[in-house]
């Protein structure tokens, strides 16, 4: 479908054809054929990716605690103009400095990247 047009500053417009976007759409959305009909066909192996993080784990809690402890609240004031211009110029969803939450999310995103690079280890039978 039509490609992205340049953003106007406050909105990123990625091209919808990237593999990550595609995976997100076609693996868990869309119309599903009756599952019993589908599994009757042997030999079809499906790749699924589940990037959801289980938040309720001690490990995650400790990482959240660490992230909050590292915050320097003295920096809490409004962003200076150079900072703001910098973040506008970046234009991307990723900031120059990794956010604390990115650290918490790191494991899952690494896993997802791993899936991209290495399809074999990512494959598993669905259901």
């Amino acid at each position, binding site marked *: 479908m039509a490609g992205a047009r340049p953003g106007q500053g406050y909105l990123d417009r990625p091209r919808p*054809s990237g593999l990550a976007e595609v995976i997100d759409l076609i693996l868990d959305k869309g119309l599903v054929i009756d599952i019993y009909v589908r599994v009757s*066909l042997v030999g079809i192996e499906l790749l699924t990716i589940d990037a*959801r993080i289980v938040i309720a784990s001690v490990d995650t*809690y400790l990482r959240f605690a660490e992230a909050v402890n590292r*915050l320097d609240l003295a920096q809490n004031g409004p962003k200076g103009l150079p900072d703001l211009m910098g973040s506008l110029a970046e234009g991307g969803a990723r900031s120059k400095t990794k956010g604390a939450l990115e650290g918490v999310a790191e494991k899952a995103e690494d896993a997802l990247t791993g899936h991209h690079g290495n399809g074999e280890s990512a494959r598993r039978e669905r259901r």
Partner: protein
Amino acid sequence: MTHASRGGPCYVYGIVPAAAPVPGGHVAGVGKAGHVAAVPCGRVAAIISPLAADQPLGTPADLRAHASVVDVLAQSAAVLPMQFGGVLADEGAVLAELLEPYEAEFAERLDMLAGHDQFTVRGRYEHDAPLREIVAEEPGVMRLRERLRGKDDAAGQDPASRGEAIRLGELVARALELKQAADTRTLARTLAPHAAAVVEHAPATPGTAADVAFLVARTHRGDFEQAAEELGRAWRDRIRLRLTGPLAPYDFASLQQRWG
């Protein structure tokens, strides 16, 4: 319309109105199988391609092939995109198990989707903005944080400190979930006036503020994009918005969904 050859398993890409054009031979299908074809039934048709029974599916090329066939379909007509991996035993099964039982529902849903595209809006939290908000908004978080900050290894060996660190993290995680739910609601409600239907998704990572799919009439696209841009401006420094689309209506294909 080109009719599919009978025989082996069929990979199904989506359902289109019977009058819709079938993609030409230049469109590569899933697997190494043959050309993409239509199986018509009343007012609708399934777009399929033949598949070898012992052929595993799931390579990046297969995913892209599925998406690009659906995209080509969406360019010329309304389409109900199938989820990746929809396979039926043969062309007879496509008719008997998919099209004949649901022809009326498919036709009705295709009528509703005509003239609309999906747009997906996702928000990512900027840097540590939500953590700062949580520290400021939750007295319990602020208190525990002050207690732990004096100590050298908050998450380390001392069992009492470790317990407090776990408790702090738990409070932060809960507060973040509430924040994500509130931001998702705000995004959905702000753009809903410009959309025919809305599907909210639970944020998949801690850094995701919101993830919402909108079905937008082509006549409303300008207003919708304008509203998204304004929300992006209102949320600057807090949340970075990404707008993807126009997309085929993957989020609005399920027959169980009620909307409009």
